[in-house]
């Protein structure tokens, strides 16, 4: 990420300002409810965007390479706007929030950080996540927080593409060969216990104030679009059982540490390094 002007700050940060903001290996962050809420959304987008970016150079075909990189770019863009908004409230820059927090300070759902696995796993995850982010961003266009509403106005269009793209692929994989069907079903079965966390309750005050959509209210739309795709894909919806959680409160899988080690390496090894 390079310094970019945002709604709160004007002008491109100078290299001197950038170096001074980044010349530390970690930041202290006081998480008010709104900052915590924004970080949850931003971390979800950045971590999934980072995972998708790992497909660059490895996707099964050129068109898919472009598609996954484009989706990653959308998600990282959404994350940047959300970090800029959270940072304006907490007194940090978007890069400080992305690069100078360690594992326990990350608020993303665990499903985002799981390793990519095979193509079926990455596509099944993208479907399960997009099926909730699509109605989420649509609802967020009515947020009483003007910046959230403005971000949502762009994001809901982008996410609609992600949902359709993942859905079309999952139908092809599920309704494809015996091997692609087996892998798609195995991916769904593995991912399912991580889907409950997508509906984690958020601060009720922020829901009451109209800042945040109520995650519970998104469940019906999620169920409907997942069910429609799985039916076409001839895949079986796994049974709801024990659901894994912890990401929103900073208890992560071992995978996030490896991801952050790669993503944050430069800023942690060379604090304040700038182009």
């Amino acid at each position, binding site marked *: 990420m390079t310094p970019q*002007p945002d709604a709160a700050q004007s002008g491109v940060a100078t290299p001197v300002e950038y170096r001074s903001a980044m010349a530390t290996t970690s930041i202290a962050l006081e998480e008010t409810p709104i900052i915590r809420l924004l970080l949850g959304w931003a971390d979800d987008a950045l971590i999934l965007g980072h995972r998708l970016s790992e497909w660059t150079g490895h996707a099964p075909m050129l*068109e898919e390479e472009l598609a996954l990189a484009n989706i990653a770019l959308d998600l990282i863009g959404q994350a940047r706007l959300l970090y800029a908004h959270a940072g304006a409230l907490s007194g940090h820059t978007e890069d400080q929030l992305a690069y100078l927090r360690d594992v326990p300070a990350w608020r993303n759902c665990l499903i985002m950080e799981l390793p990519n696995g095979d193509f079926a796993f990455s596509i099944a995850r993208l479907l399960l996540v997009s099926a909730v982010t699509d109605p989420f961003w649509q609802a967020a266009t009515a947020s009483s927080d003007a910046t959230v509403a403005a971000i949502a106005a762009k994001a809901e269009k*982008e996410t609609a593409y992600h949902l359709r793209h993942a859905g079309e692929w999952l139908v092809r994989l599920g309704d494809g060969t015996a091997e692609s069907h087996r892998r798609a079903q195995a991916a769904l079965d593995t991912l399912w216990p991580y889907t409950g966390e997508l509906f984690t309750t958020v601060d009720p005050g922020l829901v009451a104030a109209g800042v945040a959509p109520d995650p519970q209210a998104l469940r019906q739309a999620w169920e409907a679009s997942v069910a429609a795709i799985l039916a076409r894909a001839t895949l079986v919806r796994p049974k709801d059982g024990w659901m894994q959680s912890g990401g929103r409160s900073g208890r992560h899988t071992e995978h996030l540490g490896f991801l952050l080690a790669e993503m944050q390496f430069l800023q942690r090894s060379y604090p304040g390094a700038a182009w």
Partner: protein
Amino acid sequence: MTGTGDLRSRALAALETVVDPEIPTLTIGDLGILRDVEVHGDAVAVVITPTYTGCPAMAMIALEIETALARAGIAGHVRTSLAPAWTTDWLTDAARAKLAASGIAPPGPAGSRRALFGEDRPACPLCRSADTERISEFGSTACKALYRCRACREPFDAFKCH
């Protein structure tokens, strides 16, 4: 003409030279992302609205705006405004014509989900045939999808409706 109006028109003239680095046929005015030039004393604030959330060209465009102002001897900075959100409806008619002339199908009206999903197929920018098919929803940049013309068989980029 007042001094303020003069500064504003000089800034606008300087900004005529700033193009989208990914679609250099379009200026930021054509794209509709140049929203305003505010005069604050001796300096200007150029207000732009991002096209696509993750568009990597935006940082470059902000830099080029500051460079263009500096070249014209105008003090100024860039301010990004997120609301109202940019839509392809803000592309000027000149922009649509320039896109088509450079082989990129311009977007239709962005009013519906059908348009968003490209269900209203773009006409081939090369032979004008309406018989086209989508190859991929994601093209060479965030703002374009990849199509193929079934009449002249040429692949082409289409600007996505957003």
